[in-house]
């Protein structure tokens, strides 16, 4: 794995890892420090919250199972004042926890065990977004799909595709958050407005139409994947994380 956009040490982003497992803390510390991130670690929820208040981190990695207060509680406490990205770690299939964490304001989740490649890719994506370097992104490309955010134009394999306003808004939002789960609630609030936050059926219908227009023939989506019970995820250009 090469190390693109390695931050310079003095201005390097500060990452807070809250996890009760010593091995995970050690592994993350060494992975992140090797990429010149500054790392703080906390073994309990309370320690994590107080560390976050001492040195406001640029990103928080939060395990959902903590010995003192639950990770969800920590996320809720942090969200009151902390505006940076929170990436939640959870064991596999604790779907309800993942959804709850996203609804409480976590930005992303990763399932243990994860590879260094996966977590570094997420961290870079979130930091790009919050540092404002992403604002200049005008065209998003994935496979055959090209989305021109400024011109509101989409092409598949060079051929223009006509999307309705709603379909484009959905696609643009998903693509801006590529490789991250965007909850149905967030899509509905941002595309339709806060009053429509629970109308998931309408959302499903629009996503289905969007897929018919941009996905490869054969009815198997490649760009817009369903995250059951949570929302949708746009798959950007893939790198094998292993």
């Amino acid at each position: 794995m090469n190390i693109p956009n390695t931050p310079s040490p003095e201005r390097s982003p500060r990452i807070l890892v809250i996890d009760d497992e010593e091995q995970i803390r050690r592994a993350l510390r060494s992975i992140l420090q090797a990429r010149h991130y500054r790392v703080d670690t906390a073994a309990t929820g309370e320690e994590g919250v107080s560390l976050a208040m001492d040195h406001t981190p640029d990103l928080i990695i939060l395990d959902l199972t903590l010995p003192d207060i639950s990770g969800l509680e920590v996320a809720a406490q942090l969200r009151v004042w902390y505006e940076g990205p929170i990436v939640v770690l959870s064991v596999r299939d604790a779907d309800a926890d993942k959804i709850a964490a996203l609804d409480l304001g976590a930005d992303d989740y990763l399932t243990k065990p994860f590879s260094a490649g996966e977590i570094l890719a997420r961290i870079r994506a979130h930091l790009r977004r919050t540092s404002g370097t992403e604002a200049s992104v005008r065209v998003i490309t994935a496979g055959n799909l090209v989305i021109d955010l400024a011109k509101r134009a989409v092409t598949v394999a060079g051929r223009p595709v006509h999307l309705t306003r709603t379909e484009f808004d959905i696609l643009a939002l998903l693509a801006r958050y590529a490789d991250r789960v965007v909850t149905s609630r967030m899509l509905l609030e941002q595309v339709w407005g806060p009053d429509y936050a629970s109308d998931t059926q309408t959302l499903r219908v629009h996503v289905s139409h969007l897929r018919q227009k941009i996905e490869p023939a054969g009815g198997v989506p490649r760009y817009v994947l369903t995250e059951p019970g949570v929302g949708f995820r746009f798959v950007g250009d893939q790198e094998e994380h292993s």
Partner: protein
Amino acid sequence: MRPSRLLTALGGYPLVLLVVGAATAILLPFRSVLSPAQVMLLYVPIIVGLARSSGVRASVAAAVAATLAVDLLFVPPYYHITVASPVDWVTLVLFLGVAVAAGLQTGRMRQRERAAVQRQREIALLNRLSSRLVSEESVESMASSIVHEVVAVLGADRAALFVRTPGDSSELLAQAGAPEAGLTEHALADWVIRNDKAVALPSSEDVPVELRPVTVAADEALSGTVADGTFVPLQTPDGLEGVLYARPLAGAGLHRGGTRQLLAVANLAAVFLERRRLEQAAAHSNALRESDRLKATLVSSVSHELKTPLAAVMARVTGLIEEGEGCDAARVQSELAAASEDLHRLDSSIRDLVDVSRLESDAWRPKPDLYELGEVLGTVAERIPVSQRARVTFEVPPDLPEVWVDFAQLARAIYNLVENALLYTSVEEPVTVGARVLGGDLLVWVEDRGPGIPEEEKQQVFEKFYRGSTSGPSPAGTGLGLAIVREIVRSHGGHVWVDDVQPSGARFVLSLPLGGTAT
């Protein structure tokens, strides 16, 4: 109410007066042309008819009424008990005697006929029940036949079958007829189980004393209770199996011979419950043996599947540490890449083991929702390693209906099949995922061009820890992948099977009900 019931309800005597009165009214105008003897003769068939329809007592009453009518209306002087000629006395007395005798005889015949019909019904009932008993019917249907027969044949208003629980109380197994009326039914059934005595069993002359269970009145069993029906303990030589309860129609008893029939049905029910208990015990011990065997396989599989990659990783990593600083960077990279592969294998083995135990312990119930199959396949496709993705083609019709499934489980099942197909066939061979609607089911299949599955292994491949016996290469794996597929499909109310593909290959087919029966 049937006509015969109506007659019974009238108690016979009003009917007798009605019929004799009507006959008298018809005969009266012909008094001048008919002799008293002829009139008497005409009354005889009426008395016999009443004997047939209403029994002995009614026929005797009819004989007396007819004698009085003849005396008063047909033998001069009319409207007086006394008669003019002593010969008429003799005739009247003779008539009374003949009429009573004819009535008695007919009435007895009627009783015997009825008893025969009753017997026949009873034998038919027992035949039906006992043939069901040997025909291996399901417990539910047998139990419900028993209570329904009690209602239909014995004329009960409600019947219930209770089984004895290990804690010596009663558990309702089946019921028929009217709903439970009071709260005492269950309490009395419990009492019967604990005391092995019948409650409120009517005595009956046609049941030998030694075949009658000891019976008590309801308030003797539980003070303050009134039994509105009969509780019969279901005894076998091995002990008490349960309780049969029958509640007669309000105001009426059970049919004639009801006690005997109830006891006969109770005997059969006891045999049935005993068989059920023995079968359950046998199934339980089989399940225990099977679970012991699986535990043993699990331990050996776990130790093999978990320890092998772990040992490999440990060897590589300690090897690198051993070599120290002088180690060439390219070699470090390649060793670490190999270790990472081993770790993925370890992760997937752990995942299989956890999933199979969650599925079996019902801790992973499907949480179904409506999805397009394409959405699920999109997730499956994304999970396929990039290096293998070109081998897999999806042939899915665009107009498939949505399915009611647990997304994560179905994706797991289809992915397992794809992964198997990729593993068990050589790298240049394609794998196809297809789907179509057939009747009320959605079929999804994964097809490969490998060696196929031998006929005799087509069932076994879905067993836990089963590894193909074919001489070909046996890739690493827990042997749980297909067992997980089967469990998932089962919990969705579907099936999975494997077909041959010509000229060679295997096609694993999932069939899921479109209506959705995931629980």
